[in-house]
């Protein structure tokens, strides 16, 4: 059996912002340091796959998410959709087997703030049928509306016609977010990138929304790249779908693996710290802050060597000198830390304790 290429494949992807060429800095004669928001990330997302991407704000997770759905052009590496280089298709380079607009339709996005993702002056029915009209021109108006109503019933927004004819401000936050999810899924996407899609919802609605996403995954055979700063939510969604957790720190993926392993036995010190930072109701973690510095370094000037060494409780001299690669620590599980290697010079070098 020939292996099918993954739905989305990121290979050595980097995204840099700024640097020389900015108008303002040019005028002021200033040299701006570019920010490498995403640095050499490799990740495959398969069919019906769920990857929960977590990290602190400014770590580059949203930029990586946008790169994965072809909404952000990488400055290095390639992004492929089912084997087709997304940006080659966009630029008409080579022979594109899959046209760019089909790629964009197959890769959808759900934002954090559903209120601003919907046109406030349009009934939600209009917001939902317009993209259908564009991408499925053969459908009649009645057929388009029926598709919307069917999905509304599926997500529990009944009577569907009544809800569809409302304006966004006549819906609660949870209802708005369901509308945005419906809009993404109407395109029959292969991958939905959900960027902090539940963070703005009330605690009691978050689990409901995640359950709905998983329920719709079964209906639509879609994959999710679920971006969150919250490990507990990421773990819930990934574990219910047998997915993976990917942990990002200052532009790099520091740990990727099956959710149970990453949660029960995190390998990277940063993942361990995130787990400490996620309080459990019925478990008391250590009292002390387990990092050497609570503040994140400036992403414009990331530390040399391992990027986490300035905060890492396990850091040694070796971490200052050399940037670790992702090392396998289990089946489909990698950690970007020398501690994964039994014979690395790390073990013989001086402990950092500044």
């Amino acid at each position, binding site marked *: 059996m020939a292996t099918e290429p993954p739905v989305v494949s990121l290979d050595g992807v980097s995204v840099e912002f700024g640097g020389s060429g900015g108008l303002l800095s040019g005028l002021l004669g200033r040299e701006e340091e570019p920010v490498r928001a995403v640095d050499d990330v490799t990740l495959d997302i398969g069919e019906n796959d769920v990857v929960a991407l977590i990290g602190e704000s400014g770590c580059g997770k949203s930029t990586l998410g946008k790169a994965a759905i072809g909404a952000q052009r990488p400055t290095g590496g390639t992004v492929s959709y089912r084997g087709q280089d997304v940006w080659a298709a966009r630029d008409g380079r080579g022979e594109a087997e899959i046209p760019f607009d089909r790629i964009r339709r197959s890769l959808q996005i759900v934002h954090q703030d559903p209120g601003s993702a919907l046109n406030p002056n349009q009934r939600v029915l209009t917001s939902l049928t317009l993209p259908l009209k564009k991408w499925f021109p053969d459908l009649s108006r009645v057929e388009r509306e029926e598709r919307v109503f069917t999905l509304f019933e599926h997500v*529990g927004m009944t009577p569907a016609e*009544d809800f569809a004819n409302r304006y966004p401000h006549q819906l609660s936050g949870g209802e708005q977010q369901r509308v945005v999810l419906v809009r993404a899924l109407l395109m029959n996407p292969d991958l939905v990138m959900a960027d902090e899609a539940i963070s703005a919802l009330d605690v009691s609605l978050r689990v409901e929304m995640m359950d709905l996403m998983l329920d719709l995954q079964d209906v639509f055979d879609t994959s999710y790249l679920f971006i969150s700063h919250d*490990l507990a939510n990421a773990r819930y969604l990934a574990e219910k779908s047998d997915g993976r957790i990917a942990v990002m720190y200052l532009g790099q993926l520091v740990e990727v693996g099956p959710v149970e392993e990453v949660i029960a036995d995190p390998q990277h010190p940063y993942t361990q*710290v995130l*787990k400490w930072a996620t309080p459990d*109701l019925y478990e008391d973690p250590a009292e002390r802050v387990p990092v050497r510095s609570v503040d994140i370094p400036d992403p414009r000037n990331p530390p040399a060597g391992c990027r986490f060494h300035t905060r890492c409780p396990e850091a040694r001299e070796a971490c200052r000198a050399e940037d670790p690669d992702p090392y396998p620590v289990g089946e489909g599980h990698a950690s970007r830390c020398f501690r994964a290697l039994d014979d690395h010079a790390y073990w013989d070098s001086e402990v950092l304790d500044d």
Partner: protein
Amino acid sequence: MSDPVLEVEDLSVAFDLSRGRSTVVRNVDLDVEREEVLGVVGESGSGKSMVALSMLDAVMEPGRTTGTVTYHPEDGDPVSVLDLDREELRRFRWEEVAMVFQGAMSSFNPVTRIRTHFRETLQDHDYDVEAGMDRADDLLEKLYLDPDRVMGSYPHELSGGMKQRALVALSLVLEPEVLILDEPTAALDLLMQRSIVSLLRDLRDELDLTMLFITHDLPLLTKIADRMAVMYAFDVVEFAPTEAFLEETAHPYTRLLLNTTPDVTAPVSEIQTIPGSKPDPVERIPGCSFHPRCPVATERCESEEPRLVDAGEDHLAACFYVDDARAEIPVRGQGGGETGAEPPLGDADGGGDADGD
């Protein structure tokens, strides 16, 4: 034995809207004991921020605050906060009770260095500036900040987490008795949230502070609070010492809230949703405001409003059926309870559509 520093009685806050009177706090009674950390948890719109604001008589126009808020200083006569005049209120607000809000970004003047914020606060309140600035440096250091760097910075030069910690230091520089924190960590990252909570707890122990900590983040709150107050639909439905709150939870809403809170170790199958949706501040639900969503509600709950009743030591809950709730709504993490019991789903017609129009 009880020694409240803040005493709130029959507190209500209402706004008159074109579609009717919106009551966002309803007849709340609440005491904050001296040197305790009282955690107030509730979903957005439950009224928790309004309770905090009304303790400083700071509810914005056209909101109307009624009831009494009494402040008991360490020594001296009790103060009726809602009767203070402008000048008295100005002093009361920073010197006796200080408040830290969610958005540290907007609490600082963007064109003024952090040092100036500290100096002006000390001057305005006629404090010894030099002694105060020394105290400020000390506070910043305790919060893992470099005083020289932070004092010399403009707000935009600091990260969100640094600004929030600088704001905590600023709120403590006049040595208030009570610190009210309203979602102080909501805009921050996980690691920073947890770190700030850990640092606040250290500060509390060192400075003998009283804290009122308000958040929707239940797991985080249980790591700092000595006692919990749960708000639902504009009133407090349960008070309990934190351990009893987790182990002998009394109110059905609190029990369901614990079950819907994801954490990283609970089996995912035991994380459940709360049926129905939250009530509207304009339409008064007759009887118990939680009855449309409650799995143990009876006819009585539809017409009669439950008062707070004894549910254990220092433990109160506004429910007629605390024993039934404990027996019939298993909470993960709590021992006992029948494991084979059906998960509580409530009535499907609970109210999911009721707020739709």
